[in-house]
C-alpha cells in the first residue's frame, strides 16, 4: 500500500466533538493491523470548519472526511487506508449544490478563501517545531536578522501597508517606528491574545493551530524596535492555546530561536506567557498592560501612548495575534507582493469567524475588499434552514449591523466604518428573519455594560441608561421619546468615553437604529416584535384550520394554559401562557403560530 498521512483536527471545536477519541482509536487500529510503518497519524490545529468536526484529512490524496466517529475507524482503515477506497458517507455534502466533495480543494468553503496567515492551520502539527520549519518557518526571522537592519525592517512593514488586525486598523509599521524611536533602556513587545469578543475565535485558532508563526512575528518586531523581552497575554478561557504556546516557546528555545544570541547574532529575546483573568476591557491596550503589571485592568488616558510609555513605563509595541501572524508572511514573500492583495488602503487578508445562522460556520480568511455577499453565500454556503438573510453583525460589541441592502459592500476598514460598523477583531454573526434587532442591541449593551470597568462616567452610567431603555422597549414599555434619547446618549458616550470600550459600546444600537428603526417603532408603538423574539411581545395562537385536537400541546404545556377536548380545536389562554415555546416545538401539524 501507499504511504499515507492522516491529519486529525485537534482544535477546540473538534476536540469537543470527540476528535481525541477518534485519534486514539485510529492509532490503536493501525497498530493492531500492523500498519504503523505505512501510516502516520498527525494531530493538527483548527481547519476552521468546526461545525463539521471531527475532521480528518488523508494525504496524499487530500481526502476530506467530516463528522468522523470512533465507529467509523475500522471502515476507514480497511477501505481507505488499505484499499484506497473512498467512503462516500463521510464526505462533505455541499448544502446548496447537494453534491459530495472528495477533497477539501473541492469544497467552496475552502477553495474560495485566500489563506496566508492560516496557511499552516490544520495542515501541520502545532506541537512539533519541525513541521513549522518544513513550511519555511523561521526563514523570515533568519532573513531579517542576517540581512536587514532595524530601519529596513520597519520600512518593509510600512511598505506592506499592514494595518492592525485587532480592530482599530492603525498602521503597524508606524507603530513599530514610534517604539523604535522612543528613548528607553528596555523595550517590550506585547501580543494581545485577550480575545474577548463574543462570536470571535480566530486568535484562539491561530494560537492553537500555528503558535510558531506568532512567536516568529514577535521576534521580528522585537528586533526591529530593539526589545529583548515580550509577553503574550492570553485569555484564561483558552487553556489549549496556552498549552500549545508554552510547548512552542520551549521548542523554539531549544533550537535557538528564542533566548540569547539568536541564530548566532547579537539579538536576544525572552518570551513570557501571561494568562488573563477574565475582563473584556483588558483587550484595550493600556488596560492590558496594567493587567500584566498585576493591577485592576483599567485603561489610562492616551497620550502617552504605549509606544513611548508602556509596560512598566518602558516603550512597548502591542499588536494583536493576527497582526503578528502576518509579519512572517510579509518577509517571506516581500512587502510588494503583500501590498498587491486587498484594496488601496486595506492590504492583505483578514480572518473572520463566521457564525450564526449560516450553513458553513468556521474560520475564513479572505482578501480585503471582498464583498459581504461572497463571504456569506459563496464561502458560508448561504443561510441555515433556508432562512432569509436579514443582517450581519460585524466586529462584536464594538461593531454594528449591516443590512441586506449593503450585501455588496466591500469588506475593508474604511467602508465598514462608513457604514456604521467596524472591522473589530473580525467576528461575523449572520442573522436571519428570526433575530430581533432590538433584542440584539440589548444583548450587546448588556455585555458592554457588565464589562465596563467603571472608571469613566459616560461608559459606566451611559451604557446602563441605554440598557434600561432597551430592556423597556423589548418588554413592551417603550415610549416614542426613547428613540431620540438612545441616539443622543449613544453619540455622547462615543465622544466622551476614555477608552475603546466606551467609544464603541453604542455602535450596535446606533447601527440598528440606522438600518432597522422600523423594528424599534414596532416594539414601541404597536407593542409587537416582528421577529417574534421578544417574549413579552409575542402571543402564541392556534390556527383552527390546522389543529386536529391531538392534545400534544396541552399535555406538554408546563402551566396548563392550553385547553380543548380531544379531537377538538384547542385554545391558548394568553394570560396564563409564559411564552416558553414548548407547544410550538411539540405541534406536529404546525398549527401553533406567533402573533
Amino acid at each position, binding site marked *: 500500500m501507499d504511504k499515507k498521512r492522516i491529519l486529525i483536527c485537534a482544535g477546540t471545536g473538534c476536540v469537543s466533538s470527540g476528535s481525541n477519541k477518534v485519534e486514539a482509536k485510529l492509532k490503536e487500529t493501525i497498530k493492531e493491523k500492523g500498519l504503523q510503518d505505512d501510516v502516520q497519524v498527525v494531530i493538527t490545529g483548527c481547519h476552521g470548519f468546526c461545525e463539521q*468536526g471531527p475532521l480528518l484529512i488523508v494525504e496524499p490524496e487530500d481526502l476530506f472526511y467530516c463528522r468522523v466517529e470512533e465507529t467509523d475507524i475500522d471502515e476507514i482503515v480497511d477501505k481507505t487506508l488499505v484499499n484506497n477506497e473512498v467512503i462516500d458517507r463521510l464526505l462533505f455534502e455541499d448544502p446548496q449544490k447537494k453534491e459530495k466533495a472528495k477533497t477539501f480543494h473541492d469544497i467552496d468553503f475552502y477553495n474560495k478563501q485566500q489563506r496566508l496567515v492560516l496557511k499552516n492551520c490544520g495542515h501541520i502539527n502545532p506541537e512539533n517545531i519541525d513541521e513549522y520549519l518544513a513550511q519555511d518557518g523561521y526563514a523570515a526571522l533568519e532573513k531579517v536578522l542576517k540581512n536587514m537592519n532595524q530601519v529596513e525592517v520597519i520600512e518593509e512593514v510600512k511598505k506592506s501597508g499592514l494595518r492592525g488586525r485587532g480592530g482599530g486598523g492603525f498602521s503597524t509599521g508606524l507603530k513599530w517606528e514610534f517604539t523604535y524611536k522612543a528613548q528607553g533602556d528596555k523595550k517590550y513587545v506585547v501580543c494581545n491574545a485577550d480575545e474577548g469578543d*463574543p462570536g470571535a*475565535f480566530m486568535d484562539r485558532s491561530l494560537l492553537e493551530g500555528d503558535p510558531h508563526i506568532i512567536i516568529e512575528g514577535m521576534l521580528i518586531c522585537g528586533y526591529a524596535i530593539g526589545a529583548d523581552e515580550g509577553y503574550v497575554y492570553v485569555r484564561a478561557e483558552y487553556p489549549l492555546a496556552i498549552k500549545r504556546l508554552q510547548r512552542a516557546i520551549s521548542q523554539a528555545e531549544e533550537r535557538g530561536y528564542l533566548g540569547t544570541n539568536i541564530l548566532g547574532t547579537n539579538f536576544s529575546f525572552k518570551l513570557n506567557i501571561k*494568562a488573563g*483573568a*477574565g475582563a473584556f476591557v483588558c483587550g484595550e491596550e493600556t488596560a492590558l498592560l496594567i493587567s500584566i503589571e498585576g493591577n485592576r485592568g483599567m485603561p489610562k488616558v492616551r497620550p502617552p501612548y504605549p509606544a513611548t510609555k508602556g509596560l*512598566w513605563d518602558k516603550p512597548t509595541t502591542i499588536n494583536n495575534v493576527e497582526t503578528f501572524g502576518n509579519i512572517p508572511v510579509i518577509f517571506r514573500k516581500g512587502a510588494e507582493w503583500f501590498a498587491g492583495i486587498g484594496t488601496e488602503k486595506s492590504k492583505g487578508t483578514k480572518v473572520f469567524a463566521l457564525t450564526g445562522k449560516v450553513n458553513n460556520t468556521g474560520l475564513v480568511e479572505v482578501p480585503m475588499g471582498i464583498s459581504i455577499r461572497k463571504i456569506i453565500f459563496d464561502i458560508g454556503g448561504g443561510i441555515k434552514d433556508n432562512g432569509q438573510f436579514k443582517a450581519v453583525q460585524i466586529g462584536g460589541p464594538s461593531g454594528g449591523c449591516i443590512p441586506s441592502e449593503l450585501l455588496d459592500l466591500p469588506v475593508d476598514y474604511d467602508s465598514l466604518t462608513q457604514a456604521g460598523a467596524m472591522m473589530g477583531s473580525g467576528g461575523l454573526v449572520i442573522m436571519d428573519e428570526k433575530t430581533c434587532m432590538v433584542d*440584539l442591541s440589548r444583548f450587546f449593551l448588556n455585555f458592554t455594560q457588565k464589562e465596563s470597568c467603571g472608571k469613566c462616567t459616560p461608559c459606566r452610567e451611559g451604557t446602563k441608561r441605554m440598557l434600561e431603555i432597551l430592556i423597556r422597549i423589548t418588554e413592551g414599555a417603550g415610549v416614542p421619546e426613547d428613540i431620540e434619547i438612545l441616539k443622543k446618549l449613544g453619540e455622547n458616550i462615543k465622544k466622551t468615553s476614555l477608552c475603546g470600550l466606551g467609544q464603541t459600546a453604542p455602535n450596535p444600537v446606533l447601527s440598528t437604529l440606522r438600518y432597522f428603526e422600523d423594528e424599534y417603532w414596532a416594539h414601541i408603538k404597536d407593542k409587537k416584535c416582528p421577529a417574534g423574539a421578544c417574549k413579552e411581545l409575542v402571543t402564541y395562537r392556534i390556527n383552527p384550520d390546522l389543529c386536529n385536537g391531538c392534545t400534544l400541546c396541552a399535555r406538554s404545556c408546563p402551566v396548563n394554559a392550553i385547553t380543548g377536548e380531544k379531537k377538538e380545536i384547542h385554545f391558548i389562554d394568553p394570560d396564563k401562557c409564559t411564552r416558553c415555546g414548548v407547544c410550538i416545538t411539540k405541534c406536529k401539524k404546525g398549527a401553533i403560530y406567533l402573533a
Partner: protein
Amino acid sequence: MCQCCCSNQTVVDPKSQQLEEALKKYSGKKGALIPVLQEAQDIYGYLPEEVMVEIGEKLSIPVSKVYGVATFYAQFHLKPRGRNIIRICLGTACHVRGGAKILEKLEETLQIKDGETTQDLEFTLESVACIGACGLAPVIMINDDTHGRLTPDAVSKVIKQYQ
C-alpha cells in the same frame, strides 16, 4: 474545609504548603499578584479571605489591593464553588442559536440560578460571554469539556455524566 488540622502542629496542611511554594516561585517577580491569585484559586477552589490576607503580606501588597484585583476579574471567586463548573456560553452566536433556552433548562434541572452553586456543592452554574467555540453553538463547558450543538432536551443527559 480544613480547619480541623490547622491547630495541630505536627500536621502540615498540604494546601498551605502548596500556597507557600507558589508564593516562593513568584517572590520578587514583577506583576506577581494575578498569577499567584490564579494558583491560589487552583489550590483552594476559591479565594478564602485568610488566603488573600496571606498573599498580601507575603508579596508586600496592601490587602485592599489584593481584594480590589480579586473582585475586578471574572475569573476569581470569593465563595466556595461546586465540584463541577458549568459554563454556559451566551455569546452572540449562541444567543442567536438559542443559548438562553439552554440556560433556562440548566437552571430548571439543577434548581439554581446563574452564578449559584448547588447545595451539595456538586455544580456551579455561570454564564460567560463567549468560549470561542461558536461553530458549535449553542455550547456549554463543564470543567474542561466542551459540549456543543446542544438542545434543551439534551441538557439533562449531559449533566448526568457528571453526577
